[in-house]
């Protein structure tokens, strides 16, 4: 909650204005019944037309003032809530962008997006409505009670009975109703999840002929949802009429008592009408208050989720005075590096040590989950080591200014991510100062130029939703071009040619060798053919290096490497 305070304080002029207008508005609302009662009691009863007209004019004046108050309040609260929402969104976005990957991994991507969109909007809505209802309702309720008592103290005893009953009914409604809300939500989640699974595995469902089975699952989920929703709606259906009934009974009682009081001369008809009006007003205010509370409860969930992100302390510490002006050569060294994921028991990487000289090609091969991607992620310092050191150009990566470090490195990750925009824009992500010639050159090396040119729009072809859809291999090649244009000293290819066929892959390899002789290339691959020509190959198995050397050496000495070779190529004799 505390993070919200900052924003509320920032916009206090708007908020205060809104509250002041609100008070005016509420005040005017409160006065109306009294004036009306005067019109009737004094004006009509005494046949005093001028009085009627005069008070009528007064009532209009008050209404107009109330309206101005309402308009002002709306203007102020819209400004306050929208600005607060915008600021909150921006700050949250900044926070997310600035967090290290290690901290970010604690959140699911979809949930981060929801927090930025739905949750912030919820909070914004609440702030807006709060100012409208939250202050107004209590004022009207309390004011109404006061005015009623002022009108006729003895009669207000009726209030003393009606109000507590209504309040407890409202309270019961929330207590009983709210858990149902949660249950309905769960049933909805279940339905969505069944649906999602069905859609994701449609082909398998059809291939294995499990249509009936899936239909049953679906039926189950829908029936459950219908049942619980029906029950929830029915539970809710009790309270609203119940509350209205209580108030209506109160009105009947008021009418009855009024009879006696008027007879005794201590009450007038007009006052009765006013009294009834106030009672209705109090009821509405009470109901408004309950609605706010429900709103707040739902908003609380959003507030908590947003706060969770803000409270994330960055696990990565940036040095205050980083080392600068380190010559960029492209040397990478790992010294006894260990890495354990937060909360995991087993280390992903265990005592990894190697040196990669500038200009060398280093290949990393090993089974899935062996730690290959984690290893290369340590180089641009996406994560910090748990033990040991990672050195780039002789300096520990933790001593670098992040920007400086990452300038030297270009990475093509396993999952290709391109953004909406033209192909040109996507490649220029690597270096937005690049000229078009440089872009084309990079695309040529990446074996992308040909297929890009084959599109009618060429490099101006728009990618993404509503644009052209590329095959996996084409996307990978654009990602490689994006990395190359950066002219890095260190190029990391994380299984980046998995969707590319062998011919194209070898052409890319050749192109890379010619592009820059001094480029340190680190390749992660599954296919042994991708690593065969590397200067140095690291074989990873369960987080440890079980073999290091070139292809011939490993074929002689490393059992794991031999296994891999055999499974993919076959025994040497068969060749």
């Amino acid at each position, binding site marked *: 909650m505390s993070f919200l305070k900052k924003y509320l304080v920032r916009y206090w002029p708007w908020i205060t204005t809104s509250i002041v207008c609100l008070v005016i508005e509420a005040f005017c609302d409160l006065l109306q019944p009294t004036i009306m009662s005067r019109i009737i009691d004094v004006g009509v009863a005494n046949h005093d037309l001028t009085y009627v007209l005069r008070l009528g004019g007064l009532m209009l004046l008050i209404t107009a003032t109330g*309206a101005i108050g309402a308009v002002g309040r709306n203007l102020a609260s819209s400004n306050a809530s929208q600005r607060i929402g915008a600021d909150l969104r921006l700050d949250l976005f900044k926070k997310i962008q600035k967090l290290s990957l290690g901290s970010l991994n604690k959140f699911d991507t979809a949930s981060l997006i929801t927090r930025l969109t739905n949750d912030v909007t919820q909070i914004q809505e609440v702030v807006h409505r709060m100012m409208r209802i939250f202050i107004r309702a209590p004022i009207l309720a309390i004011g109404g009670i006061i005015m009623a008592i002022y009108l006729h103290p003895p009669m207000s005893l009726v209030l003393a009975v009606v109000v507590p009953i209504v309040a407890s009914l409202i309270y019961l409604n929330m207590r009983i109703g709210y858990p149902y809300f949660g249950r309905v939500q769960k049933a909805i989640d279940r339905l969505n999840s069944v649906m999602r699974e069905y859609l994701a595995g449609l082909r398998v469902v059809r291939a*294995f002929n499990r249509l009936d089975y899936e239909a049953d699952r679906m039926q189950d989920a829908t029936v459950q949802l219908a049942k619980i929703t029906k029950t929830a709606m*029915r539970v*809710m259906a009790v309270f609203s009429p*119940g509350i209205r009934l209580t108030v209506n009974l109160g009105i009947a009682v008021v009418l009855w008592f009024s009879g006696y009081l008027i007879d005794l001369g201590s009450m007038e008809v007009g006052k009765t009408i006013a009294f009834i009006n106030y009672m209705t007003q109090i009821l509405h205010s009470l109901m408004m208050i*309950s609605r706010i509370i429900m709103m707040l409860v739902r908003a609380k969930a959003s507030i908590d989720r947003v706060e969770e992100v803000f409270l994330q302390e960055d696990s990565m510490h940036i040095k205050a005075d980083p080392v600068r002006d380190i010559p960029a050569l492209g040397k990478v060294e790992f010294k006894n590096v260990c890495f354990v994921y937060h909360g995991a028991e087993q280390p992903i990487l265990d005592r990894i040590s190697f040196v990669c000289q500038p200009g060398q090609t280093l290949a990393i091969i090993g089974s899935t989950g062996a730690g290959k991607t984690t290893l290369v992620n340590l180089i641009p310092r996406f994560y910090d080591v748990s033990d040991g050191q990672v050195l780039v150009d002789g300096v520990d990566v933790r001593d670098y200014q992040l920007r400086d470090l990452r300038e030297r490195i270009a990475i093509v990750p396993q999952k290709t991510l391109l953004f909406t925009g033209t192909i040109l824009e996507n490649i220029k992500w690597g270096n937005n100062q690049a000229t078009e010639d440089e872009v084309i050159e990079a695309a040529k090396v990446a074996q992308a130029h040909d297929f890009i040119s084959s599109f009618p729009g060429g490099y101006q072809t728009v990618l993404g939703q509503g644009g052209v859809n590329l095959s996996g291999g084409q996307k990978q090649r654009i990602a490689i071009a994006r990395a190359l244009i950066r002219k890095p000293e260190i190029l990391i290819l994380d299984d980046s040619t998995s969707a590319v066929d*062998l011919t194209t892959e070898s052409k890319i390899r050749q192109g890379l060798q010619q592009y820059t002789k001094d480029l340190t290339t680190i390749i992660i691959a599954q296919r042994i053919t991708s690593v065969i020509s590397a200067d140095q190959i690291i074989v990873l198995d369960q987080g440890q290096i079980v073999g290091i050397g070139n292809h011939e050496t490993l074929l002689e000495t490393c059992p794991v490497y031999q296994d891999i070779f055999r499974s993919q190529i076959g025994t040497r004799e068969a060749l």
Partner: protein
Amino acid sequence: MGVNAQPQSAKSTSTQPIINLGGLGGRRRGPRGMPVEKARDLRGTVRRLWTYFRGQRRLLLLLFGLILFSTLIGLFVPYLVGKAIDALGEQTGVNFDLLQIIVTTLLVAYILDGVLVFLQGWFVAGLSQQTVLELRNATFAKLQKLPTAYFDRHTHGEIMSRLANDIDNVSTTIAQSTTQLIDSVFMISGSFVMMLILSPLLTLASMITIPMVFGLTRTIAKRTKLFFKEQQQNLGILNGHIEEMITGIEIVKAFNYEEQVIDDFAKINQQLCQVGIKAQTWSGFIMPLMNVINNIGFTAVAAVGGVLAVHNLITVGIIASFLSYSRQFVRPLNEVANLFNTLQSAIASAERVFEIMDQPEEAADLENAIDLDEPEGRVEFVNVTFGYEPGVDVCKNMSFTIEPGTRVAIVGPTGAGKTTIINLLTRFYDVDQGQILIDGKDIREYHRASLRKVFGIVLQDTYLFSGTIEDNLRYGRIDASKEEIREAARLANADHFICRLPLGYQTPLTESGSNLSQGQRQLLAIARAILANPKILILDEATSNVDTRTELQIQEAMVELMEGKTSFVIAHRLSTIRDADVIMVVDQGQIVEVGNHQQLLAQQGVYYRLYDNQFKNLAI
């Protein structure tokens, strides 16, 4: 899923939570003036919807009666209250007898009203949920019959939204809004009638506000519609930006793009803020101005009423009643517009749902379709031509014959049409021209269900659902015994790790099996296929994500399994290819070479070049 010709970019499949019980029985309220989605064919859709509600005609009638009754009471009450006020204000002193009668009647009326409203809510709940259920089941049944192409063309999020959100919008909203609408209409007309009965002059006085109301709504609605549309657009852009930059945050960091991305965000954010302020401010004008107009009306009534009372043409009680009725007249009037909008959006939802219902179904089994019993596993393609999009052929005049028990490896550059062969074999898609024969008969002559039983498929995306491991494996053959399941798992080298799990075969899997590693999931998928013991196996790069050592073992088991079966393997791995009986080289939709490994090498064609690349660097 790897079998599209046009792979779609990954889209998030999240849907927003639906059902909003609306707090204390209140309705869902959007900000006033928010533009609503309009239905395209109002009358037609309403008529279609009616067929779903028609089954509960009696309930509807009952509901109608309840509403009518409670409205009548609602109309009666102000009259009574007015009479009570008169009884109180009689010049000769309070008329206690009359008062007693009135108050008692009022009590009865109130209690009756309460019960009626409760019953309304009770029955509406049953009515709406029953309709939801029927609608959902009908839609899902339809989905099951739709061709695979439909699912490839629409994102999951979209389909789910229709099944979950749209259907919910339809039935709940329609049930509730319709009752409110009927209620409002009765109230408005009833109150108007009562007002006329009580005093035509006063009625005239209170009508001066009507033109004001129209004028107000017209001028404001125009502005707010514009602003809200702009707001929605900006929101869409912002959300798109957010989704991209967070999903791709690794790239953003790797390319040092954080500052730029934040700047872009700030710009869009600011735009959104500005237009949001405008939209909300303008829409906030409506209520207070309505209030002023209403009160002008009331003042007019009070003034004219006062005049009439002075001349003893009217009693105070009648004025009080009148005011009550006019309030009961005005309030629903304000809300009818809103209700109409909500209904419009519900009908638009209904249209989206019916769109699914109207989709052409997968070609049904022929009338005289036969079952494929005792399959041998001979596969023939005869001049098959096919394309996902009209005019873009992925397969052109493809022909081949595969004898039973042959191991076929399909190789070729990406996008060449390899996975399409699989799509066609299993009738996920039908050929445009030509025929596919299994055991000598066109596959369209078989029952689809029986045809698919012949195949065992292991795709690149494993599909495991939330259930126990045993349930998942049983997907292959529902009547398999526990021993058979274990044996299949053992052959796939899955038994080993399954037994290591705390609950063994009863271990529940999370949605899409994400509590296992990728390799383990592959093994389960293979075990499932083994259990199905099909005559024709289809493997799509199945073993590429598995631990190398395990992979060797699987390959051995698969060789065992493939014995006597026809198998199609799409693979890049040389070892898989090399051991095949027949290799089909596919390039640009055509089979360019067919033969075994030695024969193709000798041809020195496409295969030779592919193969050569692998060994260029092998220093042997």
